[in-house]
């Protein structure tokens, strides 16, 4: 395992930590299951890629735009979530994912099936970032996002989310504005997914529609659920497991997706709250 390779995997795991935490805001805090999270990831990535290649924007302006555009689309999805609930929301978000990928694939502005290539490496203070530096940079951002999550858990926002999650009608009856907190959750989540998208576009140097297809949404969901919905450590550990497990399983590469599927089923059967959730296996080990 060369160092460059290690840094690349590390960067991916940082990106997925951010993604898992961003999905966790919607799912774990506000209790709204979204199965189309890759769509926001893709929207963020395409925003950066288009700004960088077609309009020649620098790194930081396009980073900012990715976050803003991600937040905007998160806000847009927040609107139907006010009407559409539970399983219906799950299906809406699945549909959304397919539609977004279809738009990327079939509209020329987005580069069609071949995507957009030639995203330059990010330049910080006149110096290009190498793989190692980029891994550090993404790691720092992932750390900032974790801090943001701890902050959210401390402020009143958390209580609003919790009320919405537990019982919408009851929350409404004691004066908690359910629409407001749902929209907050989706907007924050969209913004963070946009950030992750930006990091992805600059890491890969290119974006393809299939990088943001439905299976990616599934892996993000898996990270959150595997680790423990609603916790902070859960999605982080989940993201680490899901990105590093395939690398560890590389010697038995042919079986790895099979094992991956089986692990998901087993964890859900025997640890339905996730490994770091209530009564989770890892939690009890750490507590000891």
């Amino acid at each position: 395992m060369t160092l460059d390779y290690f840094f690349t995997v590390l960067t991916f795991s940082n990106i997925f930590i951010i993604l898992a935490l961003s999905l966790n805001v919607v799912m774990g805090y506000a209790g709204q299951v979204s199965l189309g999270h890759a769509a926001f990831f893709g929207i963020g990535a395409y925003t950066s890629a288009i700004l960088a290649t077609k309009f020649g924007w620098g790194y930081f302006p396009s980073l900012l735009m990715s976050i803003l555009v991600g937040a905007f689309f998160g806000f847009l999805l927040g609107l139907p979530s006010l009407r559409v609930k539970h399983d219906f929301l799950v299906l809406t978000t699945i549909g959304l994912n397919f539609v977004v990928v279809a738009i990327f694939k079939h509209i020329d502005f987005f580069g069609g099936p071949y995507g957009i290539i030639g995203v330059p490496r990010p330049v910080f203070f006149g110096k290009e970032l190498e793989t190692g530096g980029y891994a550090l940079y993404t790691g720092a951002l992932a750390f900032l996002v974790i801090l943001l999550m701890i902050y959210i858990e401390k402020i009143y926002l958390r209580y609003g989310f919790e009320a919405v999650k537990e019982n919408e009608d009851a929350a409404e009856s004691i004066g908690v504005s359910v629409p407001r907190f749902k929209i907050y959750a989706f907007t924050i989540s969209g913004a963070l997914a946009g950030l992750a998208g930006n990091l992805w576009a600059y890491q890969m140097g290119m974006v393809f529609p299939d990088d943001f297809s439905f299976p990616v949404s599934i892996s993000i969901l898996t990270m959150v659920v595997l680790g423990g919905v609603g916790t902070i450590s859960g999605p982080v550990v989940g993201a680490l497991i899901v990105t590093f497990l395939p690398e560890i399983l590389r010697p038995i590469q042919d079986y790895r997706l099979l094992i991956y599927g089986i692990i998901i089923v087993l964890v859900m059967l025997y640890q339905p709250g996730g490994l770091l959730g209530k009564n989770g296996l890892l939690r009890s080990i750490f507590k000891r």
Partner: protein
Amino acid sequence: MQNVINALILGGIYVLISVGLTMIYGILRILHIAHAGIYTLGAFLGLSFYAATGNFWLSLILSVVLTGFAGVLIYRYIYRKVLDKEKIVSLVISIGMFTAMQELYRLIWGPYKKPFALDLGINDIRTKYFVLTQHQILILTVTAVVLLILYFLMNYTKLGKAMKACADDLEIAAAMGINVEYVISFAFFLGSALAALAGILIGVYENNVYPTMGSSVSYKAFVVIVLGGFGSLTGAITAGFLLAFAETFLVAWKGFILPRDAIAFLLMIFILIFKPEGLFRRVTR
């Protein structure tokens, strides 16, 4: 005219797949994504039996029955254990199973498309207006027969009525002396068997079977049950044909830039937002 035939065939396949999904959702409120894995299993089993025996009808029946039992196993050993848990648990399990199933098929049968060549010895019907190949005749007849049987089963037998009762309210149905476990298992059996049938028919029609053939179908079937109103059988049947017609004619009309899958999903999103109970609401609630 040719478009009408194509739409009828596509609709028939959609209906066969969605029947199981809508029954399972109706009774247990589970989004059974692994249903598409069952569909693929049916196609592979059908192909393998056909290669081994050379008798199409025998292998059709064998694989449909076997796949039906596979569905029952999924309920007995997996879903039943998490029925009392949060719904996200069964959803994630279903996704995990679907991934594992596709991989298993790839390991057993190989990753490539396998041809499913079948000659029934029926002549194609060719007229000035349309062509009806032997495979299309097969699909149309089988779908029609199955729908008739299903109609009879649901409306005139005790089991069908019990299934409806379970879909209305599981607990009350159990209190009324219906053997709920048996009814649910039967719903899984029937649904999986029909999905297997759809898999074999599609395999024959497109002349190939491959591990990921269920991917797009799985979510399309959800579009059908959303349009039909969750858990409604007649709704799902009507919606299956409706979706097939809408897709076929929108694609034939060149003005639409997005592919047919995107049309289906856009349709679904609009329905969910503006008419969440589906186009055909269940009469009993």
